[in-house]
């Protein structure tokens, strides 16, 4: 997606940082979270869960900006994000 100009308050906005929680046993390996994360934070792990699927794992945790798309797109309620408190730096 392209913006036609840089937002006027771009310097004032603090980018949120996120913590990703994965409920491995619920994952069915659909890959939506991995595919549609706008920051490519996730990738498929090598391990299997109990049902034989490969749950996702965090590839680059510093890139997560808590857009929570993974949380919203997961059909199995297997992943959610929590905004980190970055008062003292993240």
């Amino acid at each position, binding site marked *: 997606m392209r913006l036609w100009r840089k937002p006027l308050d771009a310097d004032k906005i603090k980018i949120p940082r996120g913590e990703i929680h994965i409920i491995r046993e619920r994952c069915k390996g*659909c890959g939506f979270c991995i595919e549609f994360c706008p920051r490519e934070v996730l990738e498929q792990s090598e391990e299997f869960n109990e049902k034989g699927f490969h749950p996702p794992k965090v590839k680059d945790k510093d890139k997560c900006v808590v857009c929570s798309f993974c949380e919203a797109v997961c059909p199995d309620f297997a992943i959610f994000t929590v905004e980190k408190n970055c008062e003292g730096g993240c």
Partner: protein
Amino acid sequence: MSEDVHPFETFLRKEMIPHIWCEGCGNGIILNCYVRALKDLNVNIDKVVTVSGIGCIGRVSGYINTDSYHTTHGRAVAFATGVKVAKPELKVVIISGDGDLFAIGGNHFIHAARRNVDIQVICANNFNYGMTGGQYGPTTPLDAWTTTTPYGNIEHPFNLVHLAAASGAVYVARWTTLHLRRLTQSIKKALQKEGFSFIEVITPCPEIYGRYNKMKTGIDMMNWFRKASEIRDYSDPAKAEITPERIVIGEFVDIEKPSFDKLLRDMASKVQEKMVGEE
């Protein structure tokens, strides 16, 4: 990565999770959006009734932690009409499938829309009858392969938003499971609006419909949505087509009209005023 508690846990019947839906199925996303809408609006969850019909999406009433009922095939809207009209303070939401709502249930749908009963209908349109193995239905695209159209579908599908708008619904929208933020907003809008609301959700059925029609995974189907979707808010629902190249989505109708329950109450108070006057 700890085994923490999902923020929606209290909205789900934990003992029934994981649900029966396939990997890549969009039904879970619809449930996710529904829960998010209920949570964001801070609705009194004790007064919400979730009604579903027969089909894969029909199992949703067993996963959401509200009063819920799983009806016989096609009768979800009629059942919900009875609930709403008997107890108007309840919020009655129907989540059902394209076959349940528009094949066997078609008659009940158009009449509830015509009456403008204050219920919200969310249709999971996956273009086939998934639960029974992938037969064609009233929304299956022309030429599609299904188990009962092995030579390609020769029936024109319904344009559901056109049907709902023509039947008298006050709020009509179509989204895909990829457009989940707007879908959630639409559900919230529908929950707060008086009258019959209809939201069509194009959802992937990769295991069956997708596999039969060259889109083997959920990701393939979601990418089709991404590539082909075109948001055209308030465009003419009659022209809201769904083809391999173009899926027209958006909000199509947003009007005000007194609901059936309101008219019923008005009529009842007039009748009773007259009776008291006669005594």
